């Protein structure tokens, strides 16, 4: 195994990122920070320049693929299969 390949060993790095994200989610902290953390950790494991370039190319290709249809983006409220009621409204006393 070459030295460069050894750099790809920390397979568990994104898993640690995922677990941290879950913990942050549990603590009701922002997902944004967790996402940033995950990306940084994943990037650290992909340090070999050729692999990094290939992955960047793949990310770009995936992004372009999503834009091929020219679809519009719209933010909508989450549909929860009905109306949301307050706890007090639905609790039997």
């Amino acid at each position: 195994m070459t030295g460069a390949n050894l750099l790809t060993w920390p397979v568990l790095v994104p898993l640690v990122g995922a677990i941290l994200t879950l913990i942050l989610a549990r603590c009701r902290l922002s997902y944004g920070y967790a996402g940033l953390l995950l990306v940084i950790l994943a990037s650290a494991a992909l340090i070999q320049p050729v692999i990094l370039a290939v992955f960047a190319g793949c990310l770009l290709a995936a992004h372009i693929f999503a834009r091929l249809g020219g679809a519009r983006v719209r933010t909508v409220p989450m549909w929860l299969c009905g109306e949301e009621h307050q706890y007090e409204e639905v609790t039997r006393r």
Partner: protein
Amino acid sequence: MSFAINLLMALLVAPLMAGVVRKFVRGLVHSRQGPPLAQPFHDLTKLLGKEDLRTSISFLMNYAPTIVLAAMLAAALLTPMGLPAPINAHGDLVLFVYMLALAAIATIMISVSAVGPYSMANSAAEIIGHFTVEPVMVICLLAAALKAASPTMWDLATWNADNAGSLSMVVAAIALFLALIAQVGKLPFDAPEADTDIMDGPIAALSGPRLAQFQLASLMKQIIYASILAAVFIPWGLGYIFPLNVLVHILKVCVLVVLMGLVDVVNPRLRSEQVMWFFVFVIVLALAALGLAIAGL
């Protein structure tokens, strides 16, 4: 050349094979005509043009499908498909497993960061599925790496081609084939996706182009996993001249995908504990292959 072949396999053959399975395998078993061969392409095209409805402003929610597709593309470029993989010299099986893990983690991120309760409920199923199924492939590839004394995919394939019939590799191939159907999330192991009862599992909140990205990644995953089994553990045909070795590889992948489709069509979904016991058996089988490889058999 291998760059173009791998991309063609991932982007064109993968949806086409899904069409073949839907039309011929599913159609035959269900006694009906089935959709056109190009139906997966029509589905993807339609989704790409549909409005992208977003229920969350989360970075992960919005870009995780891109990461899933990118990781699958990178994995496809690491997979030998009749020829050495395009980035064979720069990445080995560890990077391949890493890419699969990245795709799985991004999928889990989709479900965790979605606002809806269905997606959240399915993140646990996705995590359990990943940690149960992926080790089988890792163990089988490690066994092959031990035998070939190299972590590079092409070395594993060529070693197996030169030393066919090794006991550990036969056991590893059986374990990997048994795990293959669960790895691509097909029946009877489709609990994480669970199309019918929990609203498309972790991808319930995706729509339009992001759903197209995820669907294409799922189709590619099937071809990549089948290619690994075909190239590394059923390595016949690797030594043929150029177009023939690629054609033999495509034929092997077609047979595997059709077999997976057949199992998918004729089986009901297993209960969670049945799946767990099945995977206890498969993991033990994979570990046996690793043990045999360490023993030099």
